[in-house]
């Protein structure tokens, strides 16, 4: 145990500027968001290991499943030990994952890549993802949606940074690789070098996050903030619900369904973005009016919508409330999905607009859910509850691609599909969003029998802050 990482050592001194906490959180999320940029070197790994797309795709799937599992299992530990130890632990796993993965590539042992990037790195992902969330909510009780939106935006932004950076570094490590030439694939050794580079850079960046993050002292609140203004809002509790009790409430499982449906629907577009836009505008002669480069631009635009949605919609939820914003994500999302399925092929602009709206809601759903949990269960163990809820993400990460690929495989050959082939998959997503919409409508305040007795919650807080509970 390193005393420097103790929660008590990270309690903010008087006068600490809370605006230092979001960049600390962003430093971690920008690094772990790299997981969404794996497509850059996917072909290189396929060629290096001489296996199919599926075997390499499994690495990403393992990482996302481990993200959900580790967030669920380690959530209580993160809440108890504070963000600094959590961020340091996340960095240790994430960086080790890169190094073990690099060893696997360098020695051509695929199982080491699974173990390194998938399992070990995935644990770092889960702990890192939830590490700043409850701390941000406590620093920004007046704007929890804005605070978590800023951090979780970093996870979306991580891919935006890692994707072009990886392309440039791969070109540096393998002079024969030219990303502008179709079919050019970097060597496996270059990917191994890229992993080592990320390990070093991310270690430094995440160390900055761990060193900078602070927890507010017990009883702290922002200047001019009146807790009564929050208490007066519908669905916002002042009580504390433990993580153990939270999973026994219908509200937790309704939110689980909401997140699952929202993420699955987003993955429906994300998973197939590039081929999808080409297929939607394929003429009778079999050629698409959307070029490959333009399809790549579409993927970039969706990444921007995903990232922007995390910040914009989550911040908006502070104004209009959590339940109404999810009605927008699911209700308007449902209409957008139906329009995409039925009329998307009529205009490229309409197609792009609808897909961008859907992806902004996908990002918004991720970023707003910690604040929704805070509203329903209080700040007591919100990190642990959030961790458990992320199993919905893992499940959606498996189910979403299965639905899309299952329907598309039944429709015909990739590269020859048209808009009609996508309709069953997209309409299934419409139905899923309808299920999520109903689940959100059913959310009510948590029953008092699940609340912690006030003295127990206070005692727990006192232990964590070195007996400074007031």
């Amino acid at each position, binding site marked *: 145990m390193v005393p420097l990482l103790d929660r008590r050592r990270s309690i*903010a001194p008087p006068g*600490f500027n809370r*605006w230092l906490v979001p960049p600390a959180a*962003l430093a971690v999320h920008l690094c772990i968001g790299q997981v969404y940029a794996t497509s850059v070197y996917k072909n290189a790994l396929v060629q290096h290991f001489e296996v199919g797309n599926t075997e390499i795709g499994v690495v990403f799937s393992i990482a996302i499943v481990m993200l959900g599992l580790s967030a669920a299992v380690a959530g209580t530990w993160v809440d108890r030990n504070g963000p600094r130890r959590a961020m340091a632990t996340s960095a240790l796993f994430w960086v080790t994952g890169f190094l073990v993965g690099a060893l696997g590539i360098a020695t051509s042992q695929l199982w080491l890549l699974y173990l390194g990037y998938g399992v070990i790195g995935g644990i770092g992902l889960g702990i890192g993802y939830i590490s700043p969330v409850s701390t941000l909510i406590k620093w920004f009780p007046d704007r929890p949606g804005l605070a978590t939106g800023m951090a979780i935006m970093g996870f979306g932004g991580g891919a935006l940074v890692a994707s072009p950076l990886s392309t440039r570094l791969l070109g540096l490590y393998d002079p024969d690789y030219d990303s502008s030439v179709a079919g050019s694939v970097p060597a496996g050794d270059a990917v191994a070098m890229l992993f080592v580079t990320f390990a070093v850079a991310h270690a430094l960046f995440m160390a*900055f996050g761990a060193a900078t993050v602070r927890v507010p002292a*017990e009883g702290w*609140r922002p200047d001019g903030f009146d807790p009564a203004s929050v208490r007066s809002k519908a669905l916002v509790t002042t009580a504390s619900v433990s993580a153990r009790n939270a999973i026994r409430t219908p509200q937790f499982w309704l939110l689980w369904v909401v997140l699952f449906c929202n993420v699955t629907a987003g993955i429906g577009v994300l998973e197939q973005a590039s081929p999808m836009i080409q297929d939607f505008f394929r003429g009778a002669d079999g050629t698409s009016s959307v070029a490959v480069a333009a*399809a790549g631009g579409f993927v970039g635009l969706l990444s921007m919508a995903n990232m922007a949605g995390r910040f914009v919609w989550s911040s908006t939820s502070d104004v209009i409330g959590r339940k109404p914003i999810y009605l927008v994500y699911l209700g308007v999302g449902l209409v957008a999905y139906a329009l995409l399925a039925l009329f998307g092929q009529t205009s490229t602009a309409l197609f792009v607009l609808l897909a961008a709206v859907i992806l902004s809601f996908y990002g918004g759903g991720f970023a707003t859910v910690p604040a929704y949990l805070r509203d329903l269960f209080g700040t007591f163990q919100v990190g642990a509850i959030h961790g458990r809820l992320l199993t919905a993400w893992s499940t959606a990460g498996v189910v979403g691609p299965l639905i899309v690929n299952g329907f598309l495989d039944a429709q015909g050959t990739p590269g020859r599909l048209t808009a009609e082939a996508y309709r069953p998959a997209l309409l299934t997503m419409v139905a899923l969003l309808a299920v999520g919409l109903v689940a959100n409508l059913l959310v009510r305040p948590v029953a008092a029998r699940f609340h912690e007795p006030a003295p127990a919650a206070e005692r727990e807080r006192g232990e964590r802050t070195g007996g400074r509970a007031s």
Partner: protein
Amino acid sequence: MSTGTGAGTGAGAAAGGGAPRSSTARVALGWALVGVPLAYGVVETVLRASKLFTG
């Protein structure tokens, strides 16, 4: 919304009363550290996305 230093009130704020340790410069440096790579990613992505309308 509180937009100042966030020094706040309560047990922690009352305990010391000295000058804020975290200066505006530290906040600016922290945001620059994460803002610069993020801006790089956004610019690269916008350039890539522009191919949707030009390519």
